[in-house]
Every structure is written in C-alpha cells, then in structure tokens.
C-alpha cells in the first residue's frame, strides 16, 4: 500500500497545494525557542523534561531541550513550553 501512503504528497505536488491543506500531515509552530505548538498529533511516544517525541502516524517529531513541559493538550494539539534546542522529523 505504498502508493496509498504517498498519495497525499503526490497530490500536493501535482496540484501545487500548500503543505497543510491535505490531511495526514503535522504542523509545528515555534515561537522563539520557548514555545512550540504542534497540530495534527496522534499521540505522545516519549515525554521527559529533556525530550518529547510526538507521533503523526507515519512520521515522528522529536523536540529536544531543557525543562520541556506540556502546557496544554487536547485531541489534535499540543502546546510545549521550555527551552527548545532542536526539532527533528523522523
């Protein structure tokens, strides 16, 4: 089912759509390294003050830093505060 999984990406490319229009993707908004808003998350895989790993289905986002804290959390969004040193998509 590789073709199915890559369909959104192919459509985005073909129709020249912005990356956040089609479902399935996540979005990360960083504010000065002190706050991160994560949208479209599917669950937390790891949570320590130094590292938070969030799942987006096929992809994972790792936030590394110090004193990381989940300020607020609901079905699709996460607000992370603390000293964010790196964000990594896997």
């Amino acid at each position, binding site marked *: 089912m590789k073709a199915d999984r890559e369909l959104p990406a192919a459509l985005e490319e073909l129709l020249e759509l912005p990356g956040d229009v089609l479902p399935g993707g996540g979005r990360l908004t960083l504010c000065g390294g002190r706050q991160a808003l994560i949208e479209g998350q599917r*669950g*937390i895989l790891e*949570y320590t003050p130094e590292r938070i790993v969030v799942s987006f289905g096929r992809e994972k986002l790792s936030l590394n830093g110090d004193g990381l*804290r*989940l*300020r*607020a959390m609901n079905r699709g969004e996460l607000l992370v505060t603390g000293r964010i040193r790196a964000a990594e998509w896997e």
Partner: protein
Amino acid sequence: MERISDRMRGSVELELFGAFPAGVLNSAVSEGIELWDVQSRDEHSLRLKTFEKNLARLERLARRAGCEVDIRKRVGGREGLRRVLRRPVLLAGLLVTALLLTASSLFVWDVEVQGTRRLSRGEVLRALEDCGFGVGSFWPGVKTDLLRSEVMVRLPELAWMAVNVSGSRATVAVAERQPKPEMYDAADACSLVAARDGLVRRVNVLAGSAQVKEGEIVTAGRVLIAGSSDSINGMPRAVRARGSVMADTWYELSAVCPVRERLKTPAGVPHSRFALVFGKTRLNLYIGSGKTIDGCDKIISEYTLGLSGLFSTPLRLVRERFVPYRLSTGDDYDPEAAGQRLYALLEGRTEGQILESALTPGRAGELHVLTLRAHCTENIAIADG
C-alpha cells in the same frame, strides 16, 4: 493564572504513576479530555491538571493502562462551593452584597445630560429634580412621558427630551428649540450706519438708498444705507434699510502684564483627605472639617464605584488634595499665551475675516506690553438705534 470560568468549573491536579503514563495522556485526549500543565516527574510519573468533571474518566483510563492516580489538589467547582458553605459569615456577606447590588441597580445613581447648547447641564438637572427625578430615584417607578412633559413645561427652550436608564445610569438626551429670528416691523423705518471706521470695499443694498461709494473712508456712526427710497410719485418713501457694506477695518489690541508679579511655587509635602458619599449623604473620613487650610491649593477628585458606561453604585470616594504653596515675586510673562488671548479677543470683536496681523512685543517701565495689529474685512453696517 487560571481563568475565573475554569475555577467555576473546578479543576484537579493529579499525579499518574505507572509503566508508561504518557499512554494515559494519549487515551485521555483521544476521548476529548483537556489536559494542561503536564509535567514529567520522571520516566514513570506525570503531574497534570484537568477539569473536575473528567476525573472519573481519567481514573478509569489510568486503571486500564495499569497506572495509579493520586489526587493532589482540588480547586473551585464543588470543592470550592463546599468550602464557601463551611463559612457562613462569608456566604452571608456574599449574599448581602449580591442583594445590595441588585437593589442598588433599581435606583438612579448617575445622571448624564446630552445635547445641551444654550441651556446648562445644571438647569436641566434642576428641572429634573423639581419634577422628582434625580440621584436616588427609583427608576422603575418613573413615568418617562410624564417626566418629559413636566420638564418641557419648566424649560420652554426644549423641543424634545428622552430619558434612558441603564444599570443605574440615566442618560437624558435633550434637543433645544431653534431661536426665533429677530422680528421687526417693515413700516418701522431706520437707516444702517457704520459700526466702526473703515474703507468701503463693496455696497450691497436690499432696501433703502446707498449713501457711500466703494473706496470711500467712513467713520463710526456715519449713515451707510439711508432708510428712504424713491416712490412712483417722486416723494421719498420711508423704509427699513437692509443690506451690507463690506469694508476694510483695522484693529489694535494690547495686553499688559507686570514685570514683577506674585507667583505660587509648590512648597512642602501635599496631603490628602478622603470622604465617602452615599447618594447625597457625605461621610467625612477626617476630623476638623470646618477648619480652613490656608496657603494650599485644593484639588478635588471624585471616583464612582461601578463600571464606566455600564452601571453605577451610589458610593463615591472623594479625595481632597492640598498642595501647599509659597508666594514669591517673579516674572511669569508668557508672550505666546498673551498672543493667543489677544487673537481670541479679536475674534470675539469681529465677525469678519482677518487678512493680516502682527504681534509687537514691547516694554513700558515695569510692564510688558504686547500689541496686536490686524487688518480685517467685515460688514460694518448696523441698524441705527
């Protein structure tokens, strides 16, 4: 800071212990449970906050994930209500306050008058008070139609009036009548004469006969348009002269200010005293109210308890601030302010247009003298007598 609405709903702070407490977070948010202030204590424990109503569901999810829940703190909600109920004095105070605020909202504590031009705000307020409406009136009992009729009888200058009461604040909107134009008898003959000296530029006659020509210099009191007109039988006919005579006029105004005058300079530490006003009753929060305080400027400020524009309460705090001063002699002459006052005086004297003007400073002995010379154009024709 937690919002008041969150406190009303009630929130709990709890700690989760288990093999993978983050899994409980995922299950909770997938069920629509809002979480905040999630802190990781270590690999196997988390501290978080949620609404009180979600506690039972969260405990069930935690049990399912093999985690334990320890409730650390409850804020607001049912627990808050229980705490208030355990304090009867506080509860009674809250109830009395709520009752007083409700009762207070049925009375007028502030009256605002809008739309006055020739009438003063005080005249309208006095007429309203004479008709039984003012600060302290029970507004549901006020018949606005009757009040309007009574006030309009007392103030014939009013053409229309409306009273709107909102949250103890009454807004009285008025519209004044247009003044009647000056009436005169057409058979009452009179001439138009010069109000002041000038150089005639244009003569416009509507009734009567012109006695001056353009370019002529006239002095104050000279007849410009005579109150007589030719008739078909050759005899002059007496009329009331009407028309305008535009002329160039010149003004010279002077302002004089002593070089050395008595000045107030702040000295010492200002002090304040307070009073509470409930409706029309004043309660001084100081002793010795009859004592006059010399050598001080007194500045009075009033603060009304309430929300501006929304509602008012009968309670006002009055602050009287006394600023001591010392009298000294010095030069406080401000030529710019004196010039502005001279221009204001000139605009009050002429209804015409100022073509050119100049200010000339000078000094005469112990006096500053500022002279304004202005060249204007205006209608100088006025009715004789």
